[in-house]
């Protein structure tokens, strides 16, 4: 059971949108970033993993178990953080713990109170009185209190300030330190993943664009910059995406084509560059 999450050939059709043959796996002890622009199918994928949507085809295994036939067992060791609070707004933090904890056999009350103290969450406060960052951390505290082995985060950092985002990354780094926990982190703020993610799964327009080692992913591409007249026809055929402006151009190329561009400015890419250049209107890279 080296893979905590295995998704194979997952598909789901909606009117106007299709998730097609998504496959990826997340080994135990690592962080995977699930990336793609809004509407690319990240949340759909997560909801299919959680069986909140019914899949049309494919297979999902969590810690070796099917996510539907073993739903209860699977969910007992699964922690989830959504982009916004899922607890009753009128509850105090203490009441929220009381309501949720009964569902988990191994809920650790001591750990929960330690965590909320560490996160500076006042136990007597109502959920709705907490800031967005605090609500996110409260969901994290819940997941950690029953020692969830796989933590799934769906856009947890959207609408958070840089301090909270950094805190979350620190929490996640600590969480996987022992090698016994894994994280699936969906986000369109790729700066969050630039350093901490081990793996990347990139979905674009409902299709799998890439899945694998993050460093390799970033290394697959380069940014090339030059003047407009330096862009010859045979060079422009090699471009994956381009941004032209009055004094020059910036483009994304595959690292294997680097020799053809050696007379121009070639720089390493960021995940952000890759997502932006591969999602330009009317120019779908296959």
């Amino acid at each position: 059971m080296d893979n905590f999450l295995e998704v194979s050939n997952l598909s789901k059709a909606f009117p106007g949108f299709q998730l097609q043959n998504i496959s990826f796996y997340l080994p135990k002890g690592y962080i995977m970033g699930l990336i793609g622009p809004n509407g690319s199918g990240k949340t759909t994928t997560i909801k299919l993993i959680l069986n909140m949507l019914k899949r049309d085809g494919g297979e999902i295994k969590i810690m070796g178990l099917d996510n539907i036939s073993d739903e209860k067992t699977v969910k007992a060791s699964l922690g989830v953080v959504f982009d916004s609070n899922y607890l009753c707004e009128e509850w105090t933090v203490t009441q929220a713990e009381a309501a949720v904890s009964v569902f988990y056999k191994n809920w650790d009350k001591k750990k929960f109170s330690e965590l909320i103290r560490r996160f500076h969450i006042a136990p007597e406060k109502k959920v709705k009185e907490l800031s967005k960052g605090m609500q996110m951390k409260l969901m994290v505290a819940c997941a950690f209190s029953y020692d969830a082995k796989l933590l799934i985060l769906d856009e947890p950092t959207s609408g958070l300030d840089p301090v909270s985002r950094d805190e979350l990354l620190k929490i996640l780094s600590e969480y996987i330190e022992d090698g016994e926990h894994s994280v699936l982190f969906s986000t369109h703020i790729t700066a969050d993943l630039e350093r901490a993610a081990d793996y990347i799964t990139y979905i674009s327009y409902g299709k799998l664009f890439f899945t694998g080692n993050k460093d390799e992913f970033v290394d697959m591409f380069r940014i090339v910059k030059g003047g407009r007249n330096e862009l010859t026809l045979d060079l422009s055929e090699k471009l994956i995406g381009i941004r032209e402006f009055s004094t020059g151009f910036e483009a994304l190329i595959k690292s294997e084509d680097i020799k053809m561009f050696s007379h121009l400015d070639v720089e390493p890419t960021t995940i952000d560059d890759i997502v932006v250049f591969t999602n330009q209107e009317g120019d779908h890279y296959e």
Partner: protein
Amino acid sequence: MKLIISNVSGIPIYEQIKQQVKSAILSGELQEEEALPSLRTLAKDLKISVLTVTRAYTELEQEGFVKNVQGRGCFVMGRGSELIREQLICKVESNLSEAINAAQIADLSLQELHHLLDILWEEKKNG
């Protein structure tokens, strides 16, 4: 041992770790048989990917600077500092031969080249 990561240097993070570990070995800050920080702890502390650190450590091992003991961690090899010295001497040789090439094109004599080296050496020494 000091290990810091720059986000703007353009050098890949695994390469930065390798370079810093190597210079720590050469300066004697890391002694023979001394353990490198644990892989996962270092990833946590620097908030970087575990796989990135794994790559740095694996390459250091392949190059013969450290050895990986299953379940115990990474340890500095005895020959580590020697190796680095060899590598550095290689680098000096290749850079010097490049300088000689340039000097020949510019029609500099060996004496003049020596003189230039002396000046640069002094300048570097005096900061």
